[in-house]
């Protein structure tokens, strides 16, 4: 079923929320994530 305009709008809002939370999460834990990346030879 083709999503309605409202559903597409809500999906965009949800997408922005998910991306924002993920960016903040990664920024907040960047030091640990950096150590993890180094353990796997990624940086």
């Amino acid at each position, binding site marked *: *079923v083709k*999503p309605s305009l409202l*559903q*597409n709008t*809500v*999906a*965009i*809002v*949800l*997408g922005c*929320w*998910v991306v924002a*939370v*993920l960016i*903040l*999460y*990664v920024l*907040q*834990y960047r030091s*640990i*994530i950096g*150590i*993890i990346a180094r*353990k*796997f030879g990624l940086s």
Partner: protein
Amino acid sequence: MIAAATTLAQVLCCIGLGAALMSALRLSISGNPVLHWSVAFTVGHGILGWLLFIIGMAGLFTPGPVAVLLAAGVALFILTWRTAPRVGLAVPQADAVTLILLALLAVVVFLDAMEALAPAADADSLAYHFDLPKQFIGAGRIFFIGVPLEGAVPLLTHIGYVPVLMLGGEESLTLWTMISGWSAAAVLYGVCRIHTGAAMALVAALLFLTTPAVVYGAGSGQVEARIAGFAMVAAWSTAEAIRTGNLRYAVLGGMGAGFFMASKYTGALFCAAAGAMIMMQKRWLAMGLVFGISGLAAGAQWYGWNWLHTGDPFFPVLFDWIGRENLDFWSKDYNAYFKDVYFAAENPLAKTVINFLLLPVYATFNLMNMVDAGRVGLGPFPLLAAPFAVVAAVRLRRRIAASPLFIYLLIAGLFYAVWFVIGGSMRVRHLVPVLPILLVVLCVAAARISDVRPYRLVFALAVAATLALQTAGHAVFARQYITAALTGESKDAFLYHNLRGYNAIRWVNENLDRNDKVLVFIRELRFYMQVPSFFAGIVQAQVGLDPERNDPETLYRELRTAGVTHAILNRPADGPGVDVNAPYQPPINILLGTGCLQLLHRAEGPAITSRTLGTVEQQEYFDIYALRDETCLQGGVQ
């Protein structure tokens, strides 16, 4: 081999005990084998803990009675397996997504197995989760340990470590923590399967298994991941009791909540939350009575035990008002001091409405000095998925009130509210027991709106990102264990790199005996020490070590009264004395000045600040002293 066999016997025993109870209650979960057997295991785990409490009280913590108990449970398993109604063995349709999730599950199982095959090294586990069962086994019985937080607390889950440790040794114990740590994920999968397909149920289970707090605690002796199984059973049974009006589910729900209560004080709050929900129906009196009696029967034993020995069933929470006056190990004055220090450290947030609403945000992003919110927090998923649940709630608003998900949400929400207001500690990790309940709600809500493709894609992004981050963290956590397994590292070598002061333990084990007692300030030294020890933290009132203390004679006599003969002290790298960073430095330095401590040995090892991240920047030094006879006091302070 013996270790694996013992663990297997305990697993089958738990399933047998739980399945027998379900059979007696005539409860069979047809068409959902994972839920049926995982509920049986979880309930059986609680029953085993109850029976071990009786055996321990009777002074029968010896291999014979414990082995008979396990054998009886295994016999019940065989009996119930043969006679259980067919619950079906439906294999989920293995589409590409399900196969990817199953592969990820295999990775998680592998990482957990690596941890289980290595020696235990988690600090809290070595300090008391594993050390208490070791002490009980040594004594052949349960005895009261008059120490708050790590002795005089509900110990149902800890008692479950006794059979595996006694009959199968340390290897069996870590295998048991691995398997019992999976139980909540299995129940979570089973409950999700009632509402969704296999893929979404696998997503929920994987999100739980890779949550930082679960990775940290499930494979060790920490109890929260195991308690999560009890909470999940209680929530599901409560919702079923309300849906069907069947009192048998109220029995099971009460027992699940009671086993939570018997494993941790916060379980009493959970009992209140689940109990309040089961009262919200027409048959509130009968349901409430059955739930309450079952809960008390399953969970009140350790509260009675504390009441018997201190006058306070919630020792030391109510000690100021109802505690006994004549205890030699605790006083009301010290209780007030202890509560001031402990509550200040464990409650970084003021209990305001704003903080109540924002705590999940603080916990997710490790803000406001939340304890345990960082490396051992709950991950980003609850915050990521919350708006999807809101969208589902709006879309399905007419069906919400009749949905079991609504019951789950209210139980988890009520628990959170009561925990926030009157819980003793705001450690984020203490919310792990209700995390699976929340995950059911979030994942099923997302599934309910997944017919809209854009919603489905955005949710998939949230899940994929969370699982990628969390599984990477899990892999780093397990890295040291994988290295140890691949290189065939010995137990001594592994513990040297993973346990502070392990060389001091080795010296003590080789040179002292059971007639000695060692004063320790690093409590994780205790489990591997074969000599009795005395931990001089704030949790004891027998030896006063506050910085203002300046009377060496009183300190000396308190140590003697506590039976201390030796001490392990941190020393600075560049000279004698006590590390200036040690909180006990002033009084111990005064005692050193009297010459009452005679240096016997100096041990060194890596100063470990994080086992997982491998951050060892320098060496750490420990001095082992003997406490001399009291003629040392006659010379005065030198």
